[in-house]
Every structure is written in structure tokens, then in C-alpha cells.
């Protein structure tokens, strides 16, 4: 999912590896056109199915436990239920119209959103036999059965709104949240994902270039924004929505007065571990092929996370006197968020620096800054996902620079049918990244606020004080998490 860049089209250099492979295996069948014949690769298909499963594991049990462990025992089930229900709801929405709105041509609105030609997965080759009906990767000639791509992207659509739960945990009304999420993915997530990730693929760029036609892509892709695995689409997007929601819904009863310690850091740690594990699918899977760039993304996902955890813990140790496990796992998540847009672009040392910076910065944000402003972002969705996401998005411009051992971007138009390295302009890239961040912050922030009021004024977004005090598990779901 790296982005098209400037004129020609760009992606992680993974293209070349797969191209090489394709060349070896299928070279003898190459037609007169410079664009290679489409082919599937069972190694890549396997990698993408596994990556999809890994991203599912990020949501449940990963995110559910990470968040759940941080709330009080009386709200544990409510968090698990919110995350699980969002997952199920968005999965269905995705196949009904979400995929179509995100990954088809939106006609005159194509810069902003897709169309409805694949509603109910119409026009998708379910048997996945025919590479010419496959989904493009970042290598000319290399395709995935379209359902693999739909599945992988579905897991992203499912986890993004689930991230928001952390901002309003322990007080949000279940029915209101579900309606909010259904509206939010429709009006915010699908369009932004379309803007950042919709493009015609390497061969599409090549064909359009050869034919002298316009390359039809989403707005931010067209600008050349680099977002390997969803720093803007997923993390900034959900993070700003979380901030808006927690400001509008108000603080938890007793916030700042009662002790609200995590009911089980053990479970949060397990959740963080599952997030880390699953994030290899998220980041390295976003390469859409099993090649060297996937390995690079995987390596970066490992070391940036380790560096961020160490960053958070070290500053905490220095400033607060103790290195805490909650610090370590918060740092892990901050590092994972920050490396997401850079995963296939940065070199490992660049990733370490990026992760370390994110760990330190998010620490200050979640402690000093948040305490100063006194808003109740219960589980730090904003401080970790939005701040970490912004650091990652901007930092990507730097660590992707080949001058800093980055991978730069690939140009699919310069020599149609193959991919060549594009010229890297750091300043321009920084500006592009900032613009992409800005669009996301503004659109997601504004629409989230409007949607909040829509739901608030109809079915309501918050439980009553008594329900909140009793705990959402009993009051909203009629169950308790723990019995003896």
C-alpha cells in the first residue's frame, strides 16, 4: 500500500524483486507489449492470507485485550464487546459497499471516493483462477486473487474504528457507538482510504502512460504521499476522531479524583504482544508480495518497536523513577504506529531512530501534555495513535530518503512495464506528507464532531451516571467479566 508519487507512480522497491521473479518464471511468455502478462504467485498469496489473519489477531484478541486490561474490571466486557462488535459490523459493511467505495473508480468524484460497481462484491472473480481479474500489487505482472486483497483491506477497515473505542471507554453507550462507527467508516474511512490508496496498479500506470491517458487515482496518492501501511489512513484518522469524541462526550465520572488503575496490566501486555505480532501482517503485508521489501518492512516493524519501547521506558525511568511495564507496552504501540507509514521505505537504523523519537514524544504527550490539558482520552488514542502517526508520517519523508539508507520511491511510468527508482526531493516530500496529514486531521476531525452530535441528539452517546458507576458490563451487557 505504498503510494503513487508525483507524476509517474511510486512504490516500495519490492516491485523489482517480484518482477525479477516474474521474469524468471514467466519471461518466456512475455507478449510484445512491455507490460508483462499477469500472474499469481502462491508464495505471495500465502503471505497475504497470513497477513490478513495477523491483522485480525491485532483486533481480537490484540487490541481488545490491550484496551480491556487498561480499564476497570467493571468495564472489561464492554470494551471487549465494543471492539468485537465493531469488527463484525464493519466486516459486513465492507463487503456490502465499503470495498466498492474504497477501491473502485469513483467517476467524477474519484479524487475523493470510489463508486458502487462492486457492491456486494459484484464483479469479483470468486474462484480467483484468472490473473487478469486479479488485484494489482506493486510489481508489474504480479497479481493477487482479488478476494485476497479484499480480505486484507477488510482487516484494516475493521481495526481502524475499533481504535477509537479507547478514547471513550468506560462511558460510551453501546448502541450509539455502533451507529457512530457505521457512519464514520462510510463518511470518513472509506473516502480517506480511497484518497490515499486507490491507484490503477503498476500495469495500469504503464498502460495509461503508453496510451497517454490520465492516471486515475485518489487525491493524496496523486500528490505522491508516502504511507506504506496506513499511518494517515488508520492511525491519524482514528486518533483525531478519538480526541474529538472524548472532548465532546466528556470526562469519566471521578476522573482526576478516583483512582482508575488498569485492572490487568497482564492482559494489556498480552494485547500489546498480539498487536506487535499482528503488525507484521499489517506492515509487511502492505507490501502485497513476499519479497525483500516485505522483509525490510518486517525488520523495521521489529526494531522501531523495540527502540520506541526503550525510548519510553528510559525517559520514564529518568523522570518518574521507575521503568514500568505499561510504559514499555505503550512505547511498543507508539513505535508500531510511527513505523507504519515508513515500514517499507526506511532502512533499519532509520526505523530505530524514528521509533525512539516516537517513544519519547508520545511519553511526553500522554503524561505532561495530557495532564496539562486535562481531557479524558481514557486510553490515549490521541496521544499514541495520532501523535505517533503524525511523527511517523512526517518522519517517513526523512527516513525514506535514499540519502539516509531509505528506499525512495519507484517510478512506474518512466519505463512502462517496469519500475525504476524516482528522484527523491526531501523538501517536496515533507510538504506532501504534511498536506496528507492535514487533510486527514481536518476531514476526520470535522466529520467526527458532526457525527457525534447526530448520534448524541438521537440515540445518545453516553450512558447514565448510575450505569457508568455500576459499570458498563452489568448495565449495558448484563454480564460480569469475572466470577468465582
Amino acid at each position: 500500500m505504498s503510494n503513487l508519487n508525483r507524476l509517474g507512480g511510486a512504490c516500495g522497491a519490492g516491485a523489482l524483486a517480484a518482477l525479477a521473479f516474474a521474469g524468471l518464471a514467466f519471461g518466456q511468455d512475455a507478449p510484445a507489449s512491455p507490460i508483462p502478462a499477469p500472474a499469481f504467485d502462491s508464495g505471495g498469496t500465502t503471505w497475504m492470507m497470513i497477513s490478513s489473519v495477523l491483522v485480525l489477531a491485532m483486533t481480537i484478541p490484540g487490541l481488545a485485550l490491550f484496551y480491556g486490561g487498561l480499564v476497570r474490571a467493571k468495564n472489561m466486557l464492554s470494551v471487549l464487546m465494543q471492539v468485537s462488535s465493531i469488527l463484525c459490523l464493519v466486516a459486513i459493511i465492507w463487503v456490502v459497499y465499503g470495498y466498492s467505495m474504497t477501491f473502485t473508480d469513483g467517476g467524477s468524484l474519484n479524487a475523493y471516493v470510489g463508486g458502487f460497481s462492486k457492491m456486494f462484491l459484484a464483479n469479483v472473480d470468486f474462484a480467483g483462477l484468472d490473473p487478469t481479474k486479479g488485484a494489482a500489487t506493486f510489481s508489474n505482472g504480479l497479481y493477487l486473487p482479488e478476494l485476497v486483497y479484499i480480505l486484507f483491506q477488510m482487516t484494516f477497515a475493521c481495526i481502524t474504528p475499533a481504535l477509537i473505542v479507547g478514547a471513550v471507554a468506560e462511558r460510551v453507550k453501546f448502541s450509539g457507538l455502533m451507529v457512530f462507527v457505521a457512519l464514520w467508516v462510510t463518511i470518513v474511512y472509506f473516502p480517506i482510504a480511497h484518497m490515499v490508496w486507490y491507484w490503477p496498479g503498476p500495469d495500469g500506470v504503464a498502460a495509461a502512460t503508453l496510451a497517454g491517458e490520465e492516471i486515475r487515482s485518489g487525491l493524496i496518492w496523486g500528490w505522491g504521499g508516502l504511507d506504506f501501511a496506513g499511518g494517515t489512513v488508520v492511525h491519524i484518522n482514528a486518533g483525531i476522531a478519538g480526541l474529538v469524541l472524548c472532548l465532546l462526550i466528556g470526562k469519566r465520572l471521578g476522573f482526576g479524583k478516583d483512582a482508575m488503575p488498569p485492572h490487568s496490566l497482564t492482559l494489556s501486555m498480552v494485547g500489546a504482544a498480539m498487536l506487535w505480532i499482528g503488525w507484521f501482517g499489517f506492515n509487511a503485508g502492505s507490501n502485497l508480495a513476499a519479497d525483500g521489501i516485505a522483509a525490510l518492512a518486517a525488520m523495521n516493524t521489529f526494531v522501531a518497536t523495540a527502540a520506541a519501547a526503550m525510548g519510553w521506558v528510559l525517559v520514564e525511568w529518568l523522570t518518574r523513577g521507575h521503568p514500568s511495564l505499561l510504559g514499555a507496552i505503550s512505547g511498543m504501540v507508539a513505535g508500531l504506529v510511527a513505523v507504519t507509514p515508513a515500514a517499507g521505505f526506511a532502512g533499519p537504523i532509520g526505523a530505530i531512530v524514528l521509533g525512539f523519537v516516537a517513544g519519547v514524544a508520545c511519553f511526553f504527550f500522554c503524561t505532561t501534555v495530557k495532564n496539562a490539558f486535562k481531557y479524558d482520552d481514557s486510553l490515549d488514542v490521541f496521544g499514541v495513535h495520532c501523535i505517533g502517526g503524525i511523527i511517523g508520517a512526517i518522519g517517513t519523508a526523512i527516513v525514506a530518503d535514499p540519502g539516509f539508507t531509505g528506499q525512495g520511491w519507484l517510478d512506474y511510468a518512466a519505463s512502462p512495464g517496469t519500475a525504476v527508482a524516482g528522484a527523491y526531493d526531501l523538501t517536496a516530500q515533507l510538504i506532501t506528507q504534511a498536506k496528507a496529514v492535514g487533510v486527514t486531521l481536518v476531514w476526520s476531525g470535522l466529520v467526527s464532531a458532526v457525527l457525534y452530535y447526530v448520534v448524541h441528539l438521537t440515540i445518545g452517546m453516553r450512558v447514565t451516571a448510575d450505569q457508568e458507576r455500576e459499570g458498563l458490563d452489568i448495565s449495558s451487557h448484563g454480564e460480569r467479566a469475572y466470577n468465582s
Partner: protein
Amino acid sequence: MKLVTAVIKPFKLDEVREALTALGVFGLTVTEVKGYGRQKGHTEIYRGAEYAISFVPKLKLEVAVKSEIVDAVIEAIVSKAKTGQIGDGKIFVYPLDHVVRIRTGETDTEAL
């Protein structure tokens, strides 16, 4: 009969129980409690949120005994539960009207 109640540090339980057994006290009931007193708790910080934990985990022992041995029991508990540091706990003695052993229906000192 008296009920002797002692709030002690948790890791002292086994020693105290042995001392009581040595005195011929064969039954007691233990509850996990949280104590507040001179012993300070500690501070826990969770991602910038600082909580002063003023309650300290303690065990409360309840021992019903014949009035005659109350002093011996108190002495036994004090000698075993004492570390000399703040938070060692307290002993409270209450009057006890009546005791019944459920299994047999025996009452009072027979039921102890």
C-alpha cells in the same frame, strides 16, 4: 469468651498460626483486608496518572478463645507478628456472648 482480632502483615500468618496452635488454639478465621494507618502506602503511576495508594494489604485474624487465655494469645501474636516497623498492626479484643459449633450443636467453650 473473647474474640481476639489481629490485623497483621500478610507474610506473618504462618508464624502466628503456629504460635497459636502451640497455645492450644486450633481454630481461626482469616480475612484479606486493606489497612490504613501510620504506614504509608505508595504511589503508582499509570501513563502519567498518579495514584496514591494509601491502603496496605493486611490479614485480619479472628480467634475466639476462652477468657483465661486471652493474654497468652495476645502475647503470642505480638511476639510473632512484630517486625518493629510501622504497620505491624493491631490487636482488638471483643466480648463474645455465645459460640455454637454448627456440625454438632455444641455451644460456648465446648464449641471452640
